[in-house]
């Protein structure tokens, strides 16, 4: 197990390196530079050249990359080109916790709704509960957050006027750098974006849980458990659920990536000052260091999520380890 974990961990180093290299090269190939415009006015070429020289943008690309990697290894993501006097570390330090809070709550909501709904649907197969759950679930997977978010805003913010339509209810600095304040303002602002982000995923989880549990329940060892006179509750809780949740664990990796993607849209629609918004703005601004920094954070997040899932999977299913 430890060996497996170490091998998986080492595997992520070249992945992250390639992410950095590819992003670094690609973002510099995009026509237009970060200093072509100041506000709406274009700068004279000589001025642009001077600024670019200051940020070493006229060095050969390999040297730029080497410099960047050396800084990166010391934890320095460089200065922002657009936000004068602010470093990428500052910007990520402020926006990452917001995205993290949003994403984590959405993920929690997805699991909290999805797993119980899937279990109920499977245990009461072909009853009204099952049909309702599966019907709602397939509708849920088909709803897109760019449809769901405006719909929720229209219902709860525009018409019923019970919840705010935009912004995030908490600002940095956060407690321990990441924890939001527990107050009404925060939760009021969080409700709609979290639902818009999490509901779609919860439908997918419900479908997967149901399918998986239905398969497990037909296995021989479940019949054995029933045959030796265990109560239905014990059969389901102790024997069936454990195995049926393995596929659900494996989907958390892709799910995590999906939630990350979702934050791009949700942050845009709700005007939440998270990392997704910074990323998209900075690609447009050619703010290379912010693009690099945010991409690397996303890369690390996805690598860590996949790693966690793989380890959990190997822990739950010993056959994987022996591969």
């Amino acid at each position, binding site marked *: 197990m430890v060996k497996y974990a170490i091998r998986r961990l080492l595997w992520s180093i070249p992945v992250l390196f390639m*992410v950095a290299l590819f992003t670094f090269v690609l973002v510099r190939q995009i026509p237009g530079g970060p200093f072509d415009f100041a506000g709406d006015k274009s700068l004279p070429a000589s001025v642009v050249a001077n600024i670019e020289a200051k940020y070493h943008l006229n060095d050969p690309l390999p040297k730029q990359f080497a410099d960047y990697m050396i800084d990166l290894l010391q934890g320095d993501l460089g200065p922002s080109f657009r936000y004068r006097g602010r470093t990428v570390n500052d910007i990520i330090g402020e926006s990452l916790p917001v995205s993290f809070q949003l994403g984590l709550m959405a993920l929690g909501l997805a699991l909290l709704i999805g797993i119980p709904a899937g279990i109920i649907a499977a245990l009461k197969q072909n009853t009204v509960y099952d049909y309702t759950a599966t019907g709602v679930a397939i509708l849920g997977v*088909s709803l897109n957050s760019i449809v769901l978010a405006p719909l929720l805003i229209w219902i709860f913010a525009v018409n019923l006027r019970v919840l705010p339509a935009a912004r995030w209810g908490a600002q940095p600095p956060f407690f321990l750098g990441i924890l939001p304040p527990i107050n009404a303002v925060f939760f009021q602002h969080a409700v709609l974006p979290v639902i818009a982000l999490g509901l779609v995923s919860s439908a997918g989880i419900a479908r997967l849980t149901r399918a998986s549990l239905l398969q497990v329940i037909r296995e021989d060892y479940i019949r054995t458990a029933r045959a030796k006179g265990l109560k239905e509750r014990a059969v389901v809780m102790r024997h069936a659920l454990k195995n049926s949740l393995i596929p659900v664990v494996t989907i958390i990796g892709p799910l995590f990536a999906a939630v990350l*993607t979702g934050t791009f*849209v949700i942050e845009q629609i709700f005007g939440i000052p998270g990392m997704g918004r910074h990323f998209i703005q900075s690609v447009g601004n050619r703010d290379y260091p912010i693009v690099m920094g945010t991409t690397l954070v996303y890369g690390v997040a996805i690598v860590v999520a996949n790693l966690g899932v793989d380890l959990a999977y190997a822990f739950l299913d010993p056959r994987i380890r022996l591969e």
Partner: protein
Amino acid sequence: MAAATDTPSALDLAAARRERSPWGDAWNQLIKNRLAIASLVYIIVLTLMSIFANSVAPFKYDRTILSDTATCSYLPIPFICPGGTVAPSGTKYMFGADELGRDILSRTIYGGQVSLAVGLVGAFVSMVLGMVYGLIAGYGSQRLDNIMMRLVDFLYAMPILIFIILLQVFFKAKARQLGNVQNFEFPHWFVYGILAAALVCIIGGILAGKYYGLGVSAFLIGLGVFALILAGMLIALTLAIGGSPWASLIAIDNAMGGMFFLFIALGFLNWLGMARLTRGQVLSFKKKEFIEAAHMVGSSDTRIIFRHLLPNVLGPCIVAETLAIPGYIALEAFLSFIGLGINPPRPSWGNMISTGYPHLRSNAHILVLPAVALTLTILAFNFLGDGLRDAFDPRLRE
């Protein structure tokens, strides 16, 4: 001879049995699934509407009448249009006009072109790429398999969506930089060439399937040949236009309203899953008795692949690809939403929602039709994919 009419001979039985191919079985199963069939009909109708959008849509997608800005539908849709905002001229628009006075119904119909094209082409590209890759990995030597699948693992771990966003920004900026190729239209020889190639591939595929004993594999070979011809035609077109490769590609992209680069970005992303699936399927079938038997009677590798492996692998792949289509459609909507998809004024459901949602407070009706169309289409592909999966899975049959 008379006896044969009473008791069917072994030959008759065999003939009767042969009619029930796995594909026939799957089809019979699918027919029984009313939701899946309804979805299929919906998708076909939508496809026809998209193809003939010029005749079906009441107006052209970019017909702008500023005095009609945000007029409501003449239909009494509850909640959406607060009473009395229907302008006299509003009667022209069945679902109202958008924030620039363009007919929402027409734009939604034209937007279907984009979503369907992206969904179907995305599925096509990733299926061809992924199946070829997975087949080579699964059927080749273990070492080759190891190398090829390590590469897939590697790419799988990357934040691919971010790369797609960067690629799209790159393509868009490149297009703006070289921007003087706006009114490019495909030459006739190109359009007719592609249609002819498609026709030849379909007919050739059917003939090959029937007379050369290739069965459904012919379908896949046809797809592959068509993909090759398509690539060749694009290169020929690039040479014919005679500009730099970039200028030509951007001209093509403009003619397709920004879809071409979207296809490339999507193809870049989505073949990984298909490659994994195909490879897994091939590996599991490779060890089965009927493949061993085929080896034993001296079948060539080509024959084994096309006659025995592919027909078995194809079913699950088609199911997976159908279930992946909603993802492509959603991804297009997402990219168009953040301004990296279809070039305005060409509509897509994503960019219609994107430009409409700032008007949510005052004119929510702008969003209704594209949102409904997007959801229904994704729903239809989900139902169809579920139906296909059930149809192809004999274990679920009673």
